[in-house]
């Protein structure tokens, strides 16, 4: 019997059966459609992510901290990659032989290493900052649980010579002192990242996108001259050692541009190895420590008196009998000089002469001069811990204060402030801001403090200090006309003047057209010799001679040997 003639076919079926079947199929189909819609549209992101995770990787692009160079491009500070080895102790199940190998490569004690690997922590640092080649060799051993990480280490080839200028960075590559801190924002690099596709062998085959562009740290060119810095460092160090001084500082400034060519503080430290560092070594004395400058302030008093027309260059001032009583206090000259011209007051450094000039002027004008020379307020070079020194408001001054301030007591300054103030004499009476970085473009417009004529007159007085009959024949520089002023100040201890001294010398050269200003300060020379003319002036002379030669400054005086010391020796200044 044929199928088509089956009697079952002709049997009528209830219509609902086919409807149910149709409905069933429709529901299944809708479910399928819904699912695919869900996967394609709603759940799409998650799935795509999972897929990409199989072949895409996000890579960190490290950025290096900027380099610091001196004005001639000599490297002063730079970062170079190193690796650190760390371990996950739970994963690091090593054979004794493997531990021995690792210890040998890292030059560590086997017991030390075992102790670290037995640690309870999730993460132990085994050795930091090893050369990358060594880290690669260790990675080639494929030890379980031992990993390496890229880090940067900062090197300072100049070591202790440039320590205070540069400062240093911490383990996290952030600046902590000096220029490293002052210019941290510029030096700092920002790591970037990018998304790539890697193939089976781990090689990058396609760049998908750059998530963040890396920002390399900017390189900084300092105004510092490496040669002059070294010259300043060795000479100051020699002097501090010779006179058994507690500390010392020297600043070299280019009078034409305001650039700081050298800055040295002693005692110093090695920034490459900072173990056992003490606070005294870290102090950037030239900027953060104030001292009473003593006689180095006298030229300013004389300049103001000239400026106000109270005296002329050759006005005679009676300094006999070598002391002067103001109120119930008396100020002294150690030697009696009798009648002196204004120029000789500076040359012989007479306290009485300076005080007499000061008392002829209103207190307010003296305060204004000190203020416009930059005393009493920080220079804002951006160095950490910069201070401004002490300059009391003029309406609190007594006549005795005004008299002592005229020769540098009752006022405190930092060495770099003092050096900058002398710029008014080195230039034609104007002051320009100091800069730590190499200056390019035209020199900034100065702020006039004295007239050009006053500046020239004071400059020739400063020259007399260095010549016969002055307090600092040892500051003489062969081949150049030099001007400067000595300072020898008692140190204040607990509000009273102690038998300790600060010897200083600030000078400029060549006097015909000054190019450099050097300020030297030696704290507590303790061999019995403490005059600025004996302790600080020779440092000035040697550094100035070397620096002028380095810079190729033409001579402005005949090259003859140092003048014979006049009978009776050089004049001792007053304190």
């Amino acid at each position, binding site marked *: 019997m044929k199928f088509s003639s089956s009697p079952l076919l002709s049997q009528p079926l209830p219509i609902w059966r086919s409807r149910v079947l149709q409905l069933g199929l429709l529901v299944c189909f809708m479910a399928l459609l819904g699912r695919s819609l869900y996967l394609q549209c709603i759940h799409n992101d998650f799935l795509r992510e999972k897929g990409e995770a199989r072949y895409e990787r996000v890579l960190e692009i490290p950025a290096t901290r900027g380099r610091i160079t001196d004005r001639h491009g000599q490297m002063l500070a*730079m970062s*170079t990659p190193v690796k650190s080895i760390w371990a996950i102790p739970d994963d690091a199940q090593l054979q004794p032989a493997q531990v021995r190998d690792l210890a040998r490569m890292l030059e560590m004690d086997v017991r030390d290493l075992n102790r670290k690997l037995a640690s309870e922590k999730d993460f132990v640092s085994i050795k930091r900052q090893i050369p990358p080649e060594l880290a690669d060799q260790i990675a080639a051993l494929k030890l379980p649980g031992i990993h390496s990480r890229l880090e940067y280490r900062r090197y300072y*080839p*100049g070591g202790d010579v440039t320590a205070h200028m540069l400062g240093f960075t911490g383990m996290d590559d952030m600046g902590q002192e000096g220029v490293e801190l002052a210019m941290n924002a510029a030096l700092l690099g920002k790591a970037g990242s990018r998304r790539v596709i890697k193939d089976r062998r781990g*090689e990058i085959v396609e760049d998908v996108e750059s998530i963040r562009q890396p920002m390399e740290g900017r390189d900084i060119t300092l105004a510092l001259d490496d040669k002059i810095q070294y010259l300043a460092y*060795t000479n100051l160090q020699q002097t501090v050692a010779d006179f058994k001084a507690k500390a010392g500082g020297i600043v070299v400034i280019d009078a034409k541009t305001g650039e700081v060519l050298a800055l040295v503080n002693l005692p110093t430290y090695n920034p490459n190895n900072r173990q056992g560092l003490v606070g005294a070594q870290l102090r950037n004395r030239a900027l953060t420590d104030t001292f009473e400058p003593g006689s180095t302030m006298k030229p300013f008093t004389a300049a103001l008196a000239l400026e106000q027309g109270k005296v002329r260059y050759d006005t005679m001032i009676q300094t006999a009998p070598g002391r002067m009583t103001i109120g119930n206090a008396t100020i002294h000259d150690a030697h009696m000089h009798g009648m002196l011209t204004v120029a000789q007051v500076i040359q012989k450094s007479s306290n009485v002469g300076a005080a007499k000039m000061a008392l002829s002027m209103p207190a307010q004008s003296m305060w204004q001069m000190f203020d416009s020379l930059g005393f009493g307020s920080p220079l804002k070079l951006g160095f950490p811990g910069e201070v401004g020194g002490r300059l009391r408001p003029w309406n609190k001054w007594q006549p005795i204060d005004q008299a002592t301030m005229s020769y540098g007591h009752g006022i405190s300054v930092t060495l770099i402030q003092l050096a900058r103030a002398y710029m008014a004499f080195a230039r034609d009476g104007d002051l320009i801001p100091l800069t730590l970085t190499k200056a390019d473009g035209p020199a900034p417009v100065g702020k006039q403090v004295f007239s050009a004529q006053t500046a020239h007159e004071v400059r020739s007085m400063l020259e007399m200090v260095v010549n016969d009959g002055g307090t600092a024949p040892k500051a003489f520089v062969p*081949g150049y006309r030099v001007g400067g002023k000595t300072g020898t100040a008692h140190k204040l201890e607990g509000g009273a003047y102690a038998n300790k001294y600060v010897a200083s010398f600030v000078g400029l050269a060549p006097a015909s057209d000054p190019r450099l200003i050097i300020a030297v300060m030696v704290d507590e020379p303790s061999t019995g010799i403490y005059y600025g003319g004996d302790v600080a002036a020779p440092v000035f002379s040697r550094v100035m001679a070397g620096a002028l030669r380095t810079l190729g400054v033409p*001579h402005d005086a005949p090259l003859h*040997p140092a003048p014979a010391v006049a009978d009776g020796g050089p004049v001792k200044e007053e304190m």
Partner: protein
Amino acid sequence: MSSRLNSALVLLALMCALSIVASNHRARKLFIELEREQSRMHSLDVEWGQLQLEQSTWANHARVEKIAREKLQMKTPPANQIVSLEGRKP
């Protein structure tokens, strides 16, 4: 007629597909090469830095002075032995 056109088009499509595969492969190879060169550039940069550092260390003033004074017996001439040549002023 139309079957010949169709087969020609199929052939063309096939060739296009294959050339896409080939050029993609080539692009990846070139990219790998570029990556390699870039990482070489980076490592050369690092090496340059290290060499600069080394140079700075060798040219350290303290070292140069020590060698000049001790090994080469050099000294600073006294002022009266220096002859200054007059040059044009800058």
